[in-house]
């Protein structure tokens, strides 16, 4: 790794000032599980690495029925899957936090870092899109909010401008009769990069027999995570049935634009999107019914 300077700001404003002073030569770091590998491998370079872990807002993990979940951008995965409020209200988020890397990686890796790294395969991004997450950003010009489905702009690219940092994610409180799930396909049991992944959330009516709405998002099948609005919208107002689920999975497959690479072929990935959409929808429905 080339020479870097390292700073540990204690507040959001201090962090923004440091990031802004170095422009594109500054790099934020949360758990470092992406950025240290990239800096060492020469895929990214920086003059200043700014540690986000001592800023209170970036360590916040709080839930209220009114405001939903506030997930600080530097909170590591293990804190997420050990948190009672997340376990009770966001099982779809637990699905992702507990499968990123192994236990050592989960001790450091944050969801904020997973999102900012903007890998098409980032496992936390589809479930957060499915859960209507919003990114809370602060920069030299103040605060702004971006829906997570609009955050990634290309492989390793996101909407953050020089000097801006991701402070937290907000995920609305789950409505009654809603449920979510994330699944990915990997050839091993653990520690691999998704060949394809699907996150879904559903809102059912009080009878549990009809869809009110649904959101579906895909990993590893395009240059960015994909929000398949057509797939989710196709379920709105329909009775829960294998036919409706099949139709949604076909719409999701149509939105998948994968490439052939060493992990999988176009055909396999599109097929997987169909399978995983059906499975995650069924799991989300079961959770929505309280199962």
């Amino acid at each position: 790794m080339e020479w870097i300077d390292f700073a540990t700001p204690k507040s959001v404003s201090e962090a923004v000032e440091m990031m802004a002073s170095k422009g594109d030569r500054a790099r934020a770091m949360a758990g470092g599980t992406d950025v240290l590998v990239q800096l060492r491998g020469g895929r990214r370079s920086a003059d200043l690495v700014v540690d986000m872990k001592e800023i209170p807002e970036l360590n916040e993990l709080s839930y209220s029925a009114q405001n939903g979940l506030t997930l600080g951008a530097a909170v590591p995965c293990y804190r997420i899957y050990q948190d009672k409020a997340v376990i009770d209200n966001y099982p779809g988020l637990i699905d992702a936090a507990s499968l990123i890397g192994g236990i050592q990686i989960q001790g450091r890796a944050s969801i904020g870092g997973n999102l900012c790294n903007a890998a098409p395969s980032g496992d936390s991004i589809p479930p957060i899109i499915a859960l209507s997450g919003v990114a809370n950003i602060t920069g030299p010009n103040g605060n702004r909010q971006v829906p997570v489905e609009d955050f990634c702009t290309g492989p390793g690219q996101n909407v953050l401008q020089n000097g801006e940092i991701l402070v937290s994610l907000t995920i609305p409180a789950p409505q009654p009769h809603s449920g979510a799930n994330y699944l990915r396909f990997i050839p091993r049991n653990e520690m691999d990069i998704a060949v394809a992944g699907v996150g879904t959330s559903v809102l059912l009516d009080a009878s549990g027999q009809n869809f009110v709405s649904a959101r579906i998002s895909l990993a590893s099948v395009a240059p960015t995570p994909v929000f398949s609005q057509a797939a989710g919208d196709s379920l709105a107002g329909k009775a829960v049935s294998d036919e409706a689920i099949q139709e949604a999975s076909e719409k999701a497959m149509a939105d998948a634009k994968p490439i052939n690479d060493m992990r999988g072929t176009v055909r396999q990935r599109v097929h997987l999107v169909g399978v995983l959409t059906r499975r995650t929808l069924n799991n989300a429905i079961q959770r929505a019914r309280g199962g």
Partner: protein
Amino acid sequence: MPGVTHVQTTINGEEVNFLCEPRQSLLECLRDVVGMTGTKEGCNDGNCGACTVIFDGRIVDSCLVLGVEAQGKEMTTIEGLATPEGLHPLQQSFLEQAALQCGICTPGFIVAAKGLLDQEPDVDEARVRHWLAGNLCRCTGYDKIVRAVLDASQKMK
């Protein structure tokens, strides 16, 4: 030297001071600066777990931590397990169960397993295998490692 940082940290219960460059990993600092070579380097990119240490109460890959991040923190390395009275039960079980061949992965497995047993004394095979998924071994085929951890968990009760 400009930019060299003084780090004060606690390793295996003792205060340690060292000087490092911000780009140096905790693994490099432990091995090359402090001279504690028990922690091993396998991949240097987070995949093999050979460099596992307990950092601030959690197991982490020390190759993916910067040395400067150790400022004010506490950590346990493989050197912190045995006492003057003898080996740690995990070390004893690894020997008895022949859970190592070349030994490069062993400190990482033992420290990772300690991280598990310290917080969950009751473990079954599935839990041990899942917990150790971030540790790779090219020699043993894993079975003996898993058996050694289960054996140690019995001894530690």
